[in-house]
């Protein structure tokens, strides 16, 4: 940035390069964050906003360095508070597209309160959670998404904590676009990012992200070529839930219990599979899907779990102001000072 202030004509079609700042990216070699950054820069031209109207806000942690690497407006906040800062930005200027880059420690531990309330209010924010299930910047302590029993620097005998399932948390708290992706699946992540950008309301994307230093390989069973097909369930709207290298396994919903079925056993067919409805108004099925990643023997879903529309906090706030102004007129100093009991002292 020191030497480069781009002055793009607004008509110009952006490219990924237009969203890259001149600051050297300083994540560890092999960090999954590089991929997230690349996918965001690649898809930003499709976000439907001019660069000056995009703001990236973050908290603290490896992931929270993200705004420095984008050439948009950026705000690197304090630990856990990104959602609250971003809410202020959005309320101050509804025309901005506000993104939050955060991590599992930042958003689900110290920032948990801000996260659930931003979801509850359905503030029009796009929250990108870099989940590596570890504290990276502080060098290797367990996080609120670390699996139970995990041995880390601060849990030499294994954790006794139960982890958060971020998808369940987001849906339960009221987010209106809830998705998951993988750092090593660029195409999928690009699709999720573009869709989140277009969503009106709180869009939440959990990205499983590898920390090569402190939690290397945490998601390799989901991201590597040989194991991925058996362990990942790609959610697609209106499509049956099918997975496996040969697309030979499906998920059937037995009332409210998910069951893995073998499509080649002669007893089941694709018609028995649960057909995914992203726009399901009822949260129950989304919740069952979210739980699959915690259940032994089930694949981990990626994709959009649920997307629905409800009025946004910022949208309704602006509407209320406009409504009151149309009723009462726009406030003036005279109205401010004299709309109460007054009296005159004349002598």
């Amino acid at each position, binding site marked *: 940035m020191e030497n480069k202030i781009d002055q793009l004509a607004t008509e110009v079609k952006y490219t990924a390069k237009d969203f890259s700042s001149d600051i050297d990216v300083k994540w560890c070699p092999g960090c999954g964050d590089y991929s997230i950054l690349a996918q965001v820069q690649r898809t930003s031209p499709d976000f439907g906003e001019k660069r000056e109207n995009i703001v990236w806000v973050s908290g603290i942690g490896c992931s929270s360095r993200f705004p420095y690497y984008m050439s948009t407006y950026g705000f*690197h906040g304090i630990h856990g508070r990104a959602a609250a*800062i971003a809410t202020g930005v959005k309320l101050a200027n509804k025309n901005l597209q506000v993104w939050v880059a955060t991590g599992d420690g930042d958003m689900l531990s110290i920032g948990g309160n801000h996260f659930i309330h931003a979801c509850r209010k359905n503030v029009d924010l796009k929250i990108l959670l870099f989940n590596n299930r570890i504290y990276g910047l502080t060098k290797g302590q367990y996080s609120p998404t670390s699996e139970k029993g995990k041995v880390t620097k601060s849990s030499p005998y294994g954790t006794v904590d139960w982890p958060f399932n971020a998808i369940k948390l987001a849906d339960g708290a009221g987010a209106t676009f809830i998705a998951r992706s993988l750092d090593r699946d660029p195409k999928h992540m690009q699709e999720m990012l573009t869709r989140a950008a277009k969503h009106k309301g709180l869009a939440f994307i959990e990205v499983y992200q590898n920390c090569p230093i402190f939690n290397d390989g945490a998601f390799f069973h989901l991201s590597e070529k040989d194991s991925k097909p058996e362990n990942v369930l790609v959610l697609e709207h209106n499509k049956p839930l099918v997975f496996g290298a040969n697309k030979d396994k499906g998920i059937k919903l037995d009332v409210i219990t998910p069951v893995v079925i073998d499509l080649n056993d002669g007893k089941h067919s694709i018609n028995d599979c649960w057909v995914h409805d992203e726009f399901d108004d009822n949260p129950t099925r989304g919740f069952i899907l979210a739980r699959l990643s915690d259940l032994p023997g089930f694949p981990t879903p990626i994709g959009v779990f649920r997307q629905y529309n409800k009025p946004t906090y910022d949208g309704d706030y602006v509407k209320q102001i406009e409504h009151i*102004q149309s009723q009462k007129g726009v406030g003036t100093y005279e109205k*401010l000072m004299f709309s109460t009991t007054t009296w005159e002292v004349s002598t």
Partner: protein
Amino acid sequence: MAKQVQIVEDVTVRFAGDSGDGMQLTGSQFTDTTASLGTDVGTLPDFPAEIRAPAGSLAGVSGFQIHFSSNDIQTPGDSPDVLVAMNPAALRVNLKDLKPNATIIINTNSFDLKNLKLANYDVSPLEDGSLSGFNVVPVELTKLTVTALEGLSLSPKEKDKCKNFFALGLMYWLYNRTIEKTLQWIDSKFKTKPEILEANRRALKAGFYFGETTEIFTTRYDVKPAKLPKGVYRNVSGNEAVAIGFVAASLRAGIPLFLGSYPITPASEILQELSRYKDFGVVTFQAEDEIAGIASGIGAAFAGSLALTTTSGPGLSLKTEAIGLAVITELPIVIVDVQRGGPSTGLPTKTEQADLFQAMYGRHGEAPVVVMAARSPVDCFFASIEAAKIAIEFMTPVILLTDGYLAFGSEPMKIPDFDELPKINFEFRKDPEGFYPYLRNENFIRPWAIPGTPGLEHRIGGLEKKDVYGNISYDPDNHEIMVNKRKAKIEKVQMVVPDAEVEGEQSGELLILSWGSTYGAIKEGIRKVAAEGYKASLLHLRYIHPFPKNLGDILKRFKKILIPEMNKGQMATIIRSTFLIDVIQFNKVKGQPFKVAEIENKIYEVLGGENGK
């Protein structure tokens, strides 16, 4: 029977009753009427922390004190001349505060065995002679009210609830006020409840006419209008004044006001009041916690709003880290701390000035901010505008200290013309040519470049920034440069801080240094001792960091410096360490403001008899 009217200069009345008796309403009505007659007024409510303690209990007593005078007054008065006691508990709680020979108007209907017991009276104080030093006026307030409401189809309980209007009517008569303003208020307030409207009207009138016809009162009193400057006036409490002060600042600056806040006593009224001003485009974000309150404010400041967060001591502690963020990102935000008794939950409804150190030093790292304190309910209005002006013009957080005493106290304010308000001078950066986020002007102020502006895309945050360019920098020399520049900027604020002015002799034996809400009591105290021929000068500090540039010189001109404060000597410590002089402390931490008499006595003590004459 025509009754004699006696002119008095100065009266303090306290209404006291159960928290469900409507004493705050009664008090505020009396205030509005009295103020509108041109009398100077100072008020202070006193209510329990519990919302509804058991009826009739000592814990449930709620009071409202009004000091009104034909002189210019600065406080709600030390000791009441008149107490209206609606029940035994109200009598017991307030008796100790009264002046000798004070008048006590007692609702005798509530002095039954049950209420007496609740107030820990074995024998009725009306009968045991314990009130012999007072002028006791027993009135069957409840009975008279209910009689006046005969024929209305209200329940006995609803009728009973009107007795505060009877008491108000009686006080209007006693102090030669008119009832019209309150009648109008009743008409508009109870528009949709015609029966209640009629009942309250009747009760008010009945109280007024009772004064006229009863033999109990032989004299009524009148307090003539004060010689206040010409103009149109309104009443404001401190919290209300902060709220409208920031709306006015937003109009002056031409940018919308954003409040991020979490409810906390005694600051919540600012949030409530501002939430009404949607027609001014005010955004009030009732955040999930104190931290989100300020964090959202910082976000809004980044995006170009006039940002405000309001809180009290415990909340200021929670906001501490975020204030540091506002310091390093150099964004304008005002933090209003309505101080209360601490530490921890402390005395939530009581007043104190013990957050001064926290405001000055309560951050990690070198994180100087501007600190100001308002001195009166009216000053809360002007101090708010000043705080907003400094925050915006210097791109810095400003902490504005008020306290519970100012927050709930009220006084008349001469409504200033819009043009009289200080101008707030700033421009958003628009030009990309030569723009760098930390390229400062001659006063070390960086540009305010807001999202949405083409060509100015930049990143800021809590990591140390490279001088001028604003990228992350861990360079040791750069850190020191930035620390120094942030400090130098705050010192530059001194340019706009008016010189301190001494009230009274410009040099001599004793200077009293006041800050915040102690001003009123100190000013009246000095006036009282002056009447006895004693001299003390007054210097009031509104700007605490940075101090006015002439403060050190003034302090040297006096032999003794006395600093009364509602803490254990925080300002005294700052003055000592800044100017290397000694001062005399006068500290009170009882959750109560200084009384004028306490200041008087302290002045006599310090001057040592005849010394100051």
